């Protein structure tokens, strides 16, 4: 006779008092499959922990975003933000869906080129562009977004050296009514820096001013701030046209749209409260259409959305290492997922679902990672069913930034698997090995010997 499934014995005091209007229900459904593939089989084949990316979710999300903007504005172009997730397979999905590349370093620029992206469809942002980077970008006719005057002067010198007329835009920072105001990148709108930079570019005649760019913040919860930014960029573009009779070809609103994750300290889940693509599209499109651009002279609208396009497509699978109690009697569960691979655990209360069936009994649990570091906390408090050692969990909405900001620290970085629309898993990044790590190191000969 087969034995019954084991659940550890648990006793919980029933508390009475005021009901919590912000309380959310426990995850009553286990997540046993991702896009038709069993979580258990994925872990068995590729190990634990394991990042899993849903290709279908990425394609659905970019289509939803495009539809939101294209329904409201005639000329829209998305550019995939490489820093959000620059795994080659992920970038390729976005390029197949028509996105250009938006890069912020020479490394990211070379990655886009190596993937076969047309240099003219690469937007080069960021404060650190070396002479070598700029030379490549100028020779490939990429769109260079100038961050500061030193970069502007470097480009001016290179135009003479290379005898080319690069296509440039400036990054504009501004007050959009949100706190904190991002003013470390680009040229300020309100104090006239941006207008000054535009005049320098136009007077020099050595560059082709094609666009204006802004990136007002990250995980923005107010679409109206984008409306203000779009209106200010439109004013600048129209001022350039009025003074120099020069048409600005595009307005780039950058990124920063919030995903459906829940920020720490938020009362309600992000999936219920964060703005949708339609909300952002309405604010931006209305501002541009209501500005003084002539109907047939509306600039191309570029969006460098990253997080909101890929977060939902990423899952992190892991296993329970141990259950223990704190000094106060609180349930502590240790997972094999640490903050070294789940960087976003510092910002979000990630949704976590068991990967196997469970009963209605739950415990308020603190989830720790495997690192021998006090900061390694995945969730400070979450109401979870009774997980046994070796059982699996699925962490949701981890597609953005975790696979670029992860650290090789104490443990090695795990495999990444992509599930294609036909429900077939593909290994798209192999887990690290000791050989990988040691391969980059050199021990001086005088340190090679010691008493063993």
């Amino acid at each position, binding site marked *: 006779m*087969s*034995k*019954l*499934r*084991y*659940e*550890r*014995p*648990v*006793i*919980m*005091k*029933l508390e009475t008092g005021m009901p919590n209007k912000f309380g959310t229900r426990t995850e009553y459904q286990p997540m046993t499959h991702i896009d038709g593939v069993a979580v258990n089989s994925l872990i068995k084949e590729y190990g634990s922990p394991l990042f899993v990316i849903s290709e279908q979710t990425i394609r659905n999300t970019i289509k939803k975003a495009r539809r939101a903007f294209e329904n409201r504005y005639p000329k829209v172009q998305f550019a995939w933000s490489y820093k959000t997730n620059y795994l080659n397979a992920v970038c390729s999905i976005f390029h197949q869906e028509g996105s250009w590349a938006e890069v912020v370093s020479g490394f990211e620029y070379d990655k886009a080129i190596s993937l076969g992206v047309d240099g003219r469809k690469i937007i080069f942002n960021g404060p650190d562009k070396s002479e070598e980077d700029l030379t490549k970008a100028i020779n490939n006719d990429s769109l260079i977004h100038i961050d500061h005057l030193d970069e502007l002067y470097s480009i001016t010198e290179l135009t003479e050296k290379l005898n080319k007329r690069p296509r440039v835009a400036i990054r504009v920072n501004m007050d959009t009514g949100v706190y904190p105001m991002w003013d470390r990148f680009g040229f300020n709108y309100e104090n006239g820096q941006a207008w000054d930079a535009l005049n320098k570019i136009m007077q020099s005649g050595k560059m082709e001013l094609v666009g204006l760019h802004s990136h007002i913040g990250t995980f923005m919860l107010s679409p109206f701030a984008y409306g203000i930014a779009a209106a200010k960029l439109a004013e600048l573009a129209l001022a350039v046209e009025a003074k120099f009779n020069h048409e600005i070809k595009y307005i780039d609103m950058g990124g920063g749209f919030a995903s459906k994750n829940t920020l720490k300290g938020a009362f309600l889940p992000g999936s219920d409260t964060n703005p949708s693509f339609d909300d952002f599209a309405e604010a931006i499109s209305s501002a541009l259409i209501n500005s003084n651009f002539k109907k047939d002279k509306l600039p191309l609208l570029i969006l460098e959305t990253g997080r909101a396009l890929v977060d939902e497509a990423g899952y992190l699978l892991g296993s329970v290492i141990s*259950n223990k*109690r704190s000094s106060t*009697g609180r349930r502590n569960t240790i997972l094999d997922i640490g903050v070294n691979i789940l960087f976003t655990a510092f910002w979000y209360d990630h949704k976590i679902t068991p990967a196997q069936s469970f*009963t209605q*009994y739950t415990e308020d649990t603190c989830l720790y990672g495997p690192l021998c570091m006090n900061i390694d906390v995945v969730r400070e408090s979450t109401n979870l069913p*009774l997980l*046994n*050692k070796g059982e699996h969990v699925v962490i949701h909405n981890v597609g953005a930034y975790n696979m670029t900001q992860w650290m090789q620290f104490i443990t090695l970085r795990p495999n990444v698997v992509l599930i294609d629309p036909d429900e077939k898993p593909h290994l798209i990044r192999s887990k690290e090995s000791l050989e990988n790590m040691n391969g980059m190191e050199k021990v001086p000969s005088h340190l090679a010997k010691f008493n063993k």
Partner: protein
Amino acid sequence: MKLRKNVAVSEAGLLFNPVTGESYSINPIGVEILNLIRDEKNPAQISRVILDKYSTDQATFEKDYHDFISILEHHNLLESHEETKA
């Protein structure tokens, strides 16, 4: 080790301590263990019953059993040694 005499445990998993007026929710395996304690089974006997019935190993159950007992003690639901002697 004994459960306090006046503590009531229902088969549905509701435990009531009339001394403090506090109520608790217990999962089915917890109820089973409390009933075995009431029947004055020792830890080895309890372990045997559970291991025969559920798919777990001795080390896991022993750890969970001691954790469960420590929480019962924490909530003052077990008779202390002095009380047992008396």
